């Protein structure tokens, strides 16, 4: 019978391997699965390619994963934030590579990867430095760039409420990249603040259907990145 729950975050991230591509949900702190990221730091996988909109702040969560030297490449749209010093240092010293992707193109590439679309055309970034080296094509008198779908070996996301089959709903703007990353991850790993039985979520309101989810672990009171940073927290 179907039960995707895992005992804790440690169990949930056990399979992540060296060299894996990992999508991590969140826009700023909203939706960032901090407890799963910290478990991944403990787990030890390295040489990761991480796909996430930002690069974290302070020295917790994604920034801590970067600081621990586990990320060889970031694919993101906005690696700078007010309290972010970890990524800039790694980038300038050449220890972490960066593929900068416009936010909407990043989102669409992730959705395409999850939807079995290998490539699509977009008007975004035409005529800019981010078009360098990209194939372009004209449709109806306008130029477009060819962009490729993105998939990942693992996706780490945070839900507000999940059932044991893996159906998910999110909290407000914490939804952001999580539903599309759940689609694009070969193994999608979820931390959820509330865990319920199948049937307790209204089928009209489920945002991520269970088919996209592999492991669910209950993290009842997830930390907020801004509060950790304000308190000067670091991980590990």
């Amino acid at each position: 019978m179907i039960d995707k729950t895992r005992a804790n975050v440690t169990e949930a991230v056990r399979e992540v391997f060296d060299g894996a591509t990992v999508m991590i949900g969140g826009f700023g702190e909203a939706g960032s699965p901090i407890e799963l990221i910290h478990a991944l730091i403990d787990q030890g996988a390295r040489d990761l390619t991480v796909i996430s909109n930002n690069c974290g702040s302070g020295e917790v969560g994604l920034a801590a994963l970067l600081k621990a030297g586990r990320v060889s490449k970031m694919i993101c749209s906005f690696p700078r934030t007010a309290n972010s010093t970890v990524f800039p240092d790694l980038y300038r010293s050449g220890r972490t590579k960066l593929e900068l992707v416009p936010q909407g193109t990043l989102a669409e590439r992730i959705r395409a990867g999850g939807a079995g679309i290998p490539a699509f055309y977009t008007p975004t970034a035409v005529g800019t430095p981010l078009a360098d080296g990209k194939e372009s094509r004209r449709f109806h008198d306008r130029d477009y760039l060819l962009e490729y779908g993105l998939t990942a070996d693992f996706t780490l996301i945070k839900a507000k409420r999940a059932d044991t089959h893996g159906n998910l709903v999110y909290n407000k703007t914490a939804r952001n990249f999580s539903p599309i990353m759940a689609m694009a991850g070969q193994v999608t790993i979820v931390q959820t603040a509330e865990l319920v039985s199948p049937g307790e979520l209204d089928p009209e309101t489920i945002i991520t259907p269970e088919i996209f989810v592999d492991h669910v672990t209950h993290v009842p009171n997830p930390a907020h990145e801004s509060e950790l940073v304000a308190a000067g927290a670091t991980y590990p």
Partner: protein
Amino acid sequence: MTGTENSIGWSREEMAGRVAQDIPDGSYVNLGIGIPELVARFVPEGRELIYHTENGLLGMGPSPEPGEGDPELINAGKRQVTAKPGASYFHQSDSFAMIRGGHLDLCVLGALQVSQNGDLANWSLGGPDDIPAVGGAMDLVAGVKSIFVITQHCTKDGAPKLVESCTYPLTGLRVVDRVYTDLAVIAVTPEGFQLVELAPGVDFDTVQERTGARLLPIAEPTSNV
């Protein structure tokens, strides 16, 4: 060979039950219209399968009790169904993202013809006056991880449906993994059709005779695999 259907071999229900035996616990499954729909009745004890219908429901349950249906809760065959606990609704683009993106484990489809390299023809007889209609069949065979076909071994006129190459318009190239007929279970392998199991009372020669391509015998188990 007219009239051979069901005179030997498995009934439609037995064919559906035989398919169900091969579906692992926890699978996400799309069932095509017709005989494939019967498979849902035969989930083996102890297994939980989640049914997807491409018009926008995951967690499809059986037909409603009389008078309890909703004309807006239907399956891809446009018949009223129910939603199980844990079900979810979604729009067509999300539904086919599940299909095309390789998230479904299995699709069970009917067939007009299957070729020995796994090509499937199941959407059109190609007649000049036919109204062509394809629905989601081409998306399903292109995207779902495994494709099982359930079909009578021969047409009502006795013509083989398992053939060297399809003559009807194709649904997809090299997509079929297994064929479940009234006479046998047959795998599509790189070497062609390979017998997996015979229906009770049916022998290899009978199946070969009614198959339009070479049939390989059941693979002997080897000690080194």
